[in-house]
């Protein structure tokens, strides 16, 4: 995936589409940003200057889909997460998870979320659940799986035509489909003809926390130097002056 931070306006459409696609419930009243479940979360970052020199940017952070040495895969005692050899997706299996949350500690991007409560939808709203994704119970960790439900649907469609390879246009994650500004792009990084691969090769392209060697598959880009510096910052949320 490639994300153009200079285009992101922080609207949150990606967060909404993700919650709808993946049957993520609304949280109880007592939830805050530490206990909520937001598989993709748009963080507000700034250049740490005082008003009016302060400038803001919005960085959508989701599971970075690390390479085969993903930290969460290493630490899971249940082997509830694995790296899919075919697609490279780091797949989280909540049904195997026992809820130790070791993976949440291991993940340097804070991209994993724990179900503190059983999912509860207001009466009638459970009719709007997506049948391609199973809801999770409390006590398990979940995270972005690159909308594998849509990948499955693309595979079925290809199989209907007798193909084993999916058509790339059929598999678009919900966040990418919903983004109104076109900041998010998705495709095959190994295929150099795709937009995503070309975006990743640009000079202003960077990945979050590259120096720790997680080899994430999400490539961000920005023309602004201070935004690129954020990638090396310890926490994407910035210092304590943020609203919260």
């Amino acid at each position, binding site marked *: 995936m490639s994300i153009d931070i*200079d*285009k992101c*306006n*922080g*609207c*949150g*459409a990606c*967060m*909404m*589409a993700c*919650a*709808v696609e993946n049957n*993520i419930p*609304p*949280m109880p009243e007592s*939830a*805050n*940003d530490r*206990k*909520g479940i*937001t598989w993709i*979360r*748009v*963080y*507000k970052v*700034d250049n740490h200057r*005082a*008003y*009016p020199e*302060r*400038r*803001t940017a*919005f960085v959508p952070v989701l599971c970075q889909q690390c390479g085969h040495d993903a930290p969460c895969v290493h630490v899971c005692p249940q082997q509830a997460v694995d790296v899919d050899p075919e697609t490279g997706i780091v797949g989280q299996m909540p*049904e195997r998870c026992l809820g130790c949350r070791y993976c949440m500690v291991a993940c340097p991007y804070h991209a994993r979320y724990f179900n503190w409560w*059983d*999912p509860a*939808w*207001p*009466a*009638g*709203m*459970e*009719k*709007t*659940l*997506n*049948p391609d994704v199973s*809801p999770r*119970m*409390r006590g398990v960790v979940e995270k972005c799986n690159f909308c594998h439900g849509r990948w499955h649907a693309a595979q079925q469609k290809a199989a209907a035509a007798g193909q084993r390879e999916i058509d790339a246009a059929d598999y678009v994650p*919900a966040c990418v489909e*919903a983004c*109104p*500004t*076109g900041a998010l792009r998705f495709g095959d990084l190994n295929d150099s003809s795709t937009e995503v691969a070309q975006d990743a090769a640009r000079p202003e392209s960077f990945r979050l926390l590259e120096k720790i060697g997680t080899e994430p598959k999400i490539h961000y880009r920005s023309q602004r130097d201070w935004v690129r510096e954020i990638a090396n910052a310890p926490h994407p*949320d910035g210092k304590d*002056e*943020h*609203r*919260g």
Partner: protein
Amino acid sequence: MTTTRRNLLKFVGGGAAGALLTPAPWRLITDTALWSENWPGIPRPARGEIRARFTHCTLCPAGCAVRARCVGGQPVSLTGVKPHPIGHGALCPWGLVGHQLPYHPARIRQGPVKEAIVAVARAIAQRGAGERVAVLDLRPGRTVSWTYRRAMAVMAGGLYLTPFQPAYAIDLAAARTVVSFGAPLFDGWGTPGNVFAARANFRLIQVEPVESRTAALADIWLPIRPGTESAIASALTGEIAIAEAARATGVDEKTLGAAKEAMAAGPVLALAADPGVTPGNWNAELGALGRTVVARREAPVPEAWKKAAPSTAVSAAPDRSIRVLLIDESLPGGYVPWQDIEPKLAPNAAVVVFSSTSEGYARHAQYVLPTAVYPETAEDIGPAIDTVAAVFRIAAPLIAPVVPVVNSGEFVARIAGLPQTDALRERADAIHKAGRGTLIDYVAAKSKPVKEATADDFWKALNQGGCWMDDTEKQAAPGKLELAAAVVGRPLTSPTLHDELPLTVVTAEPGRGGLESPLMSKLERESNLRLSANRVALSKADARANGIENGSRCVFETARGRLSVVAVIDAGVPAGVVEVAGGARMVDLYGPNRTARVVRV
């Protein structure tokens, strides 16, 4: 063998040992584990055939085209329609979760319909001389708006009230420089898909005190002191010197100079946060009239409808004159503060509001009648601010209303004695008869001239998700004077700050009304992305001065009243400003003067 306790224990022991050698306990353990996966009562998604159905979103006048993924007829997710010429397949965050609104726990589920009918009939019969019957239409421009207008024309002393309705449309594609005085161009203004499709064509100069989402993406942000927009306007047109403007607004001269230079590129457009306000006759001065600001066009209506009451502003209604007030709050739209409406009501006025939320006028009305919510609604969406050609699109209902609802158009038609007809069908037939324009059929994914379709086919296509768009070339261009009159509104005022109310109120979020899906908590509570309705943002300095910390419970107080809020500290908010989210409760409080204070509880 004697039955002693010891033997009994041995028997039990043998049983246990034997049981362990059978599959029973192991199977029971596994089964219990499987049972525990299901016992929390987590709902299972329903299965069924997956189909795409098309409609339009009614949550704002943009009316974006929507493709609903339906499982067995029930919409489970929404997305835009990519090839649409205006929407370009984009939906905003509210539109993406609109399909959950019918099940909102705070939705109004029942109302005193019979009592309301009786009370309204009695009030109409018993009204005195000069007492009026009024309909307040918060989303004018729809076909049902015509029904209200016709009803008020037929009724003696009928008044059709609306919030300010711009008689112009914005042609964003024609603009090369846009100067926005706080208008949330990238976050709630116009049609999102249209705005972002045109983004590469213009440079945006955003003029506002707080760095909003739009300001963050703008080419130039002018961080002015609140209320000094006129100085910027004058500086950019050269009426005052840059240095003087810099003193007045607090923006440095270099940035102002850069903004002025940027204005030289091509057609300019000025926007304000409130469409009823323009900084002087600015767009006329800039030569925007006829180029980027054009007359708003409406789809044809049947001839019989032309006898309709004109639109009146609430402020223009005589005081204490309205005996029956019917407020159509069924779609999120403009909001007129209750303090502006209340003086217009006669004593013993009967106020009926058609709404699905208790946050708006339901707080003040006597009779609250439940209406359908998107996507149950079957009506058309009025024109969007940034659509140049006339359009007609129906929000075809995707599900039947889940609670008993009242149709406000039928209600008003009945009390006025108008015949009950299918107004949408009549309008569609009138459009078809006019013979102009193109039918964009989402289901078939193609467009064709209206002339090539029969009236029945046209109606069917519109109901299955389809849009009629007029031919822009054939629309007559208006005279410049006509536009100038349409554009001038109230001038921007500087707030009168004083010690009691030292903070200027700035609205952070695009003005929304009505219900929003509980999933919006992801943006408001589960992340720090948006301000929720009960939160205000302050600068560190102002917070410290009042002993407020991040997350403190406070009271937001204005000359009109107070509200319990939670305060957050935001380094992007300058001193002297308090940032609030929209919503009826807030708008009722801060009024036109926009001054407030925040006090820790």
